[in-house]
């Protein structure tokens, strides 16, 4: 075989190796989505309602989490029971907070679907507010878990 062939082979291999992720994106000028205002608004409302709807399932799960605790009567003298109580309290709070997040996020999306006057920028600002509300608390998180 000739060096030319090898060079071609290597060039092909290099080209193959550097293929970057190309998603089949909708065309920027509106080929894939956002055809008209009405369907846009409908999409926002649906996304909002579906996200808010998750709160129901979370509520049911919290109920089951609670039910699971009811049998644990007086378990003094059992270290793991005390540990479990702390565990339960922490998850009740966390899952409750996630439920709240669903409500907030879903609410913003739903409202942007109903409120024709809201601009894209307005909606983004509201979404950014939710994001900054839930930032990492590195310092506390590291210690509170008692490892």
């Amino acid at each position, binding site marked *: 075989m000739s060096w030319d*062939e*090898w060079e*071609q*082979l290597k060039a*092909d291999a290099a080209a*193959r*190796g550097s*293929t970057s*992720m190309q*998603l*089949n*994106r*909708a*065309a920027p000028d509106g*080929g*894939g989505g*956002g055809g008209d205002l009405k*369907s*846009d608004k409908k999409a926002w409302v*649906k*996304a909002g309602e579906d*996200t808010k709807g998750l709160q129901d*399932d*979370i509520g*049911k*799960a919290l109920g*089951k*989490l609670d*039910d*699971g*605790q009811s049998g644990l009567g*007086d*378990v003094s*003298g*059992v*270290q*793991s029971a005390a*540990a*479990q109580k*702390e*565990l*339960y309290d922490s*998850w009740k709070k966390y899952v409750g907070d*996630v439920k709240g997040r*669903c409500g907030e*996020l879903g609410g913003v999306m739903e409202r*942007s679907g109903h409120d024709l006057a809201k601009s894209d920028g307005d*909606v983004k600002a509201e*979404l950014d507010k*939710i994001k900054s509300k839930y*930032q*990492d*608390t*590195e310092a*506390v*998180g*590291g210690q*509170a*878990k*008692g490892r």
Partner: protein
Amino acid sequence: MDIATLQALKPSEFEEAADGYRATSEMASTAKDKVENQIAAGVRNQLKGAAATAAVDGLKELAQNFHYVQTECALASTALNGFAYDMAAAKRKLEAALEDAKAAGCTVGADGSVTFPAGGKEVDGKVPEGGTVSASTSATDPTSAAIERQAVNMHPNPNFGKAVEFANRIGDALKEATEADAKWAPKLRALKADDDLKVSDRDWSDVKSDQDGVSDAGKKYLDSMPQPPKDGSPKDNAAWWKGLNDEERAAWLSLRPDSVGKLDGLPSAVRDEANRVVFDETRARYQMELDSIPKPPANEWTYIATPGGWASKVHTDEWMAWHNKYGDRYEHLNKSLDGMKSIQARFDATGLATDKDHKGLPPAYLLGFSAEGNGRAIIANGNPDTARHQAVYVPGTTSNLSNIGGNVDRMTATWRVATDEADGQPVSTITWLGYDAPQDIVKDSPFRHYADDGAPAFNRFLDGLEASHTGDTPPHRTVIGHSYGSTLVGAAADHGTLNADDVVTAGSPGVTVPKAEQLDVPKGHVWNEEADGDVVPDIGRFGHGGTDWDGPWTVPSDERFGAKQMTTDTEGHSGYWDEGSDSLLNQALVVAGHGEDVKLKEPTPTWKYTR
């Protein structure tokens, strides 16, 4: 722990608490899938602009919350069941000892001491008295045990010896319970939820150490369950999983996600769930490790004078010191994280369609994942277990985790076209990087062992797809081998039985066997593509072409191989999946079960390629 506490402890109450965590975990799993595959996918598909991007971003964060809840609550459930298991064992031992003591006429004190009645042969006209043995545990030390035995043998009242035994048994049961309690309490505390809703790398790292902790503590619990078959077939694995109840499945998934994710034959949804945990944990761990490595020194190069008089460019001592210490690990972490970014990008593309008239991408199923070595990634578009048509694509030389993106794209492209052609039937296309591909075209690709070594895993994977498929009609399966990937497919057919209905080879340097009929599929079901300018088949044939009486070095492009030659309109070795091409369409038609619509051409006549 004292007798009263252990007697009062009801393991079933802890199992009920475990059920509550499991229900929470299952809710979170469903919610995560809904947020990613339905809600975020819908926004991505139908809306554009800065607000839509921010909304998808917010939904991704929410999905992470759910994933975190899912994983940690599953571990909490398993931990509580493990605790209940250990306590139940200790409690049974205690109760048996108490019953036996009672039956022997002894009374047990609240502190574990055992009072025994008078008994034995009369000594000096009197029956030996009763007494009390204080609370104790079995002697572990041989000397103490011997002393104890001697005391028992010497005592005139045989009830003494019995009481000693009862006291020991009671003490042992209490000790076991105390130790189990002390073992589990910190594991339970470690599972406490984070105090903020941002699921960080540190949080995933904590999840992994929690998993290890619960796994460690729950060894007896897990060992008590049906174990996965050792070196079992996919059918065996499927049967094992089917035979587990919900609690057992939850335990295996939470404690051994890496093992469960690898088992061919298990339902794809289960493998995906397991591998996604491994994926998130690995990514966090790698990122944290990378962040902890010092960056390479900025002054990397310098010039030294050579005897000839010119300057030679060399690495600085500073850079070399860094490289010797961190270089390899730094590179591995970075490359692996690149690959993980590509996989995440595929997850984030669910729902995207090329235009309004076409379906958006279906949810992705991570059927295999590992960042070790060259890496492993098996990604399906759409659930293979419910698909009518399956395609499994094996990439070739240089493929590894870091460059998985391109190989994933090929199968999403194939999915789109095959779905169009499949008469409404569900299609699942799978990128299978389940072997160590040769990395260097010049140095590695001439060697056969990569194909031979990877062949058994490929056959098992295909058998696994068969075993996990639901429904009455077996799926129609197409295997697609590109370049060295086709060599692996051939090796698999040669060493075992290729569980496929159609085989497509593209840019094949040879499939190790000389005839299409040796690829285990019915006649007329082997399809080949060789594009203009693709030099691989003619170079590679000398290494991987099959040989028989009809001649040496035969590749699928050759007439005498006996494959159907599909037309191509792309150039070179890598264009076979270019969007809008005939090369892609022909493959998609085969995948969709419409081989009759494929455009064929005449194969290269024998005289043209034999030398």
